[in-house]
């Protein structure tokens, strides 16, 4: 029994309430928002340190004994993702005072941002299947508001697509949860994972659950909403979505396939492998077809999810480590690429590669960061994307999954090709004769972009540290005995919630 898993969820939700209370006082609202985000980061990192040093933690809310309590509980995997999500939110909100930043321009941004971060942390830390659905809905409601923020035709159209697809996805989750409860009488992940509780009749529920998650994670045939939605959001919000939303669905796929639907997962592993490979390839092809920087960034999100899910489908220690490490790096690289794309779009008018040019001579920082981010998402050696792909290729060859390995490598190659062409057009070649009208860009976007790229560069040059984190997370995911033990431990008598 530990209170640690509660704070990363509770702090941003309290912060959201405080941000609503300070709607009329922008300075106070900014201060409250940054404070809540900083505290969430602190709480998430404390939780991560605790899970790394002393194993998984669980909190049975209300002090009820295990099958009845609604539990929060996590191991290194959930804590690591939470520990990446919280500082990403903080970093994106830090330049909130700059003109043009949504934190300054829209007073409803702060509560929605904090609700989104609270919802995502809830997804990462909950140990209850129904609460997983509830946290997805919290995230979804906040993201609806954020996507439509600022209005305009394109955002309205994007919101309709995004809202419909994601609502159907969560409805599928809920149907699956109802069937699981009807069959097992429990929604507690610890109870559902007990050996012997693997029921072949749950295969149908598992299929529906994975289908809903696949739609939310933008896996291949269900991911067409993402390139329609993300490029139209405010750049800061698009970066936030790229780092958090599809990643939380991918996390839920990893977690439930290992813990709740382990019997069904054995039957479905080939499907995960095929879908992941198809998504990785589709992402690469999409990158090649994209004619503007923001759509290019959106397709790198799709491709990144595909690579991570290939790791899930390989189902070996090496494969899972590679998939999770790629998920981690994708949480930093794709937001950075969205910011770079926004800087590029602000420079060239609308981000279309044909009208851009000469960025290298005008803004070497943005051009350099754009180039480095392209290398990161394509998986080229000095950056973070390379090492996880190396692990995945090795695991894939060991498992004899040459098709999936080929798809991952080809997807990465197409991304590199498209990224190199984008760099050549937008940065290398001389500026067009008539420079397009430039939009004002929030000053902070450049420094956040530089910060994220620095993280990618350092983590790519020192791959030992993220590699060890991913390997610890994969170990916990594949051998959940320690997590199940803390989830099943009855809270001490008289403990009150």
């Amino acid at each position, binding site marked *: 029994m530990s209170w640690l898993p509660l704070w990363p969820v509770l702090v941003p939700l309290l912060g959201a309430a405080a941000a609503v209370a300070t709607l009329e006082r922008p300075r106070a609202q900014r201060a409250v928002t940054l404070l809540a985000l900083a505290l969430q980061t602190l709480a998430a990192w404390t939780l991560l340190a605790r899970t790394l040093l002393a194993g998984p933690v669980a909190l049975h809310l209300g002090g009820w004994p295990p099958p009845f309590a609604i539990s929060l509980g996590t191991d290194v995997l959930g804590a690591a993702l939470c520990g990446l999500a919280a500082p990403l939110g903080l970093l994106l909100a830090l330049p909130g005072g700059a003109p043009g930043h949504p934190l300054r321009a829209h007073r409803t941004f702060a509560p929605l941002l904090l609700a989104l971060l609270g919802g995502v942390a809830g997804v990462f830390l909950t140990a209850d299947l129904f609460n997983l659905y509830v946290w997805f809905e919290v995230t979804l409601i906040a993201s609806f508001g954020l996507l*439509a923020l600022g209005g305009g035709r394109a955002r309205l*159209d994007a919101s309709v697509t995004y809202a419909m697809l994601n*609502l159907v996805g969560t409805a599928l989750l*809920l*149907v699956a949860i109802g069937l699981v409860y*009807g069959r097992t009488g429990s929604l507690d992940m610890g109870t559902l994972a007990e050996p012997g509780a693997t029921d072949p009749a749950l295969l149908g529920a598992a299929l529906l659950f994975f289908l809903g998650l696949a739609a939310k994670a933008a896996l291949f045939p269900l991911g067409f909403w993402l390139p329609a939605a993300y490029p139209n959001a405010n750049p800061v919000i698009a970066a936030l979505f790229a780092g958090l939303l599809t990643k939380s669905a991918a996390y839920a796929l990893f977690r439930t396939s290992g813990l709740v639907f382990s019997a069904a997962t054995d039957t479905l592993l080939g499907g995960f492998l095929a879908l992941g490979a198809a998504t990785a390839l589709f992402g690469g092809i999409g990158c090649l077809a994209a004619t503007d920087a923001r759509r290019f960034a959106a397709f790198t999100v799709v491709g990144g999810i595909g690579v991570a899910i290939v790791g899930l489908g390989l189902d070996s220690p090496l494969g899972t480590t590679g998939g999770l490490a790629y998920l981690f790096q994708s949480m930093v690289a794709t937001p950075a690429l969205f910011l770079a794309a926004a800087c590029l779009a602000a420079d060239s008018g609308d981000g279309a590669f*044909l009208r851009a040019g000469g960025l290298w001579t005008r803004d070497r920082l943005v051009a350099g960061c754009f180039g480095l981010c392209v290398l990161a998402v394509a998986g080229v050696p000095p950056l973070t994307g390379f090492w996880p792909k190396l692990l995945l290729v090795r695991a894939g060859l060991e498992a004899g999954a040459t098709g999936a390995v080929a798809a991952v490598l080809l997807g990465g190659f197409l991304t590199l090709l498209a990224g190199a062409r984008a760099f050549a057009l937008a940065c290398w070649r001389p500026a067009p004769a008539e420079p397009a009208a430039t939009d004002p860009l929030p000053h902070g976007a450049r420094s956040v972009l530089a910060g994220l790229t620095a993280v990618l560069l350092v983590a790519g040059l020192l791959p030992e540290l993220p590699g060890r984190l991913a390997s610890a997370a994969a170990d916990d995911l594949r051998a959940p005995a320690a997590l199940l033990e803390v989830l099943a431990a009855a809270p001490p008598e008289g403990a009150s919630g």
Partner: protein
Amino acid sequence: MNTHLLFAGLTAALFASSVYLLLSPSILRLVLGVFVLSNATHLLIFVAGRLTEGAPPLLHADRRDVVGVMADPVPQALILTAIVIGFALLVFLMVLAYRAYARFGTIDTDVMTAAEPEPGPALPGDEV
């Protein structure tokens, strides 16, 4: 058992209608489809939790143990939560649909292509 069958059939019919509505390009039908879909889901959870007639999940004031058959309160709690969330989302969807209608002058999603406009001229190297 027959009641279960009846409710299972009703749930299936609701799911089928919602899929039919969701396949339409009209935003209004999409909203209604999501609405029917969420109600079908609620009914499914309710039926999956078993139908028990005339056995409210109430404990006797001076006896804390369970006597005889009792309805499972958990599916009801789940549905209550899902109804609240679903209602809020439905209201959001209706506002979104209205705003889209006001902005585009149509409720046909096939015509609304502002989010993904036709791509511009081909990039160098694309012409074959």
